[in-house]
């Protein structure tokens, strides 16, 4: 069976991981409450989507 011949150095490991970084979500603005929200989703702050679609949002207590 094929086996590794050499141990990989830390630099090699780091180079491999150079492309593994996570990207921030792109957020859109809720047209109703102007909070930033995920696109294509009902706004978790005010419960609106496309002008209506009210979800029951608990008032902050």
């Amino acid at each position, binding site marked *: 069976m094929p086996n590794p011949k050499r141990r990989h150095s830390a630099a090699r490991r780091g180079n491999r991981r150079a492309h593994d970084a996570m990207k921030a979500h792109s957020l859109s603005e809720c047209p109703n409450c102007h909070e930033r929200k995920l696109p*294509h*989703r*009902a706004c*978790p702050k005010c419960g609106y*989507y496309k002008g*209506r*679609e*009210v*979800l*029951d949002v608990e008032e902050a207590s």
Partner: protein
Amino acid sequence: MRHKEAGWKLGRNTSHRRSLLRNLVTSLIVEERIETTVPKAKAMRPNVEKMITLGKRGDLSARRLAAAYLMTREAVDKLFDTIGPRFGDRNGGYVRIVRTGWNKGDGADKAFIELLGSEKVLDEKRQKRAETRAKRAAETKKAMEEAEAQAKTESGAEAGEEGEKKE
């Protein structure tokens, strides 16, 4: 290439999946809106639309086909009496799926699925829910106040201090 992979299996065998979808469709017809996961909502959509098409046909044969699929008599009656006529002039696209967020435990992508034109019914339902919630809140508040008053009168200064701290 994602060929020959149409549909959703939902991690279930055939009978389990069929039961799940029948339950979901029945609930949606009775409740007008249900909250579920995005894949389940998408998987049930064709079945819902087929049922509504039966509801629009409205004859005895259609009624029997619907009764064979839906779980309750109530759902069949509602499908033929109110939902079928409502969609008389629309060809398909009877439901709306809106993504909402994620489950806390397993991170499942949640959405609600609702029948179009159910806004009025849903608003009424929401109002009723709000009313019962307000009533319950008022009751608990009253009960708490009573209990607090009782504690104060019963065990003097110490309990009184505690009650004040909580406030």
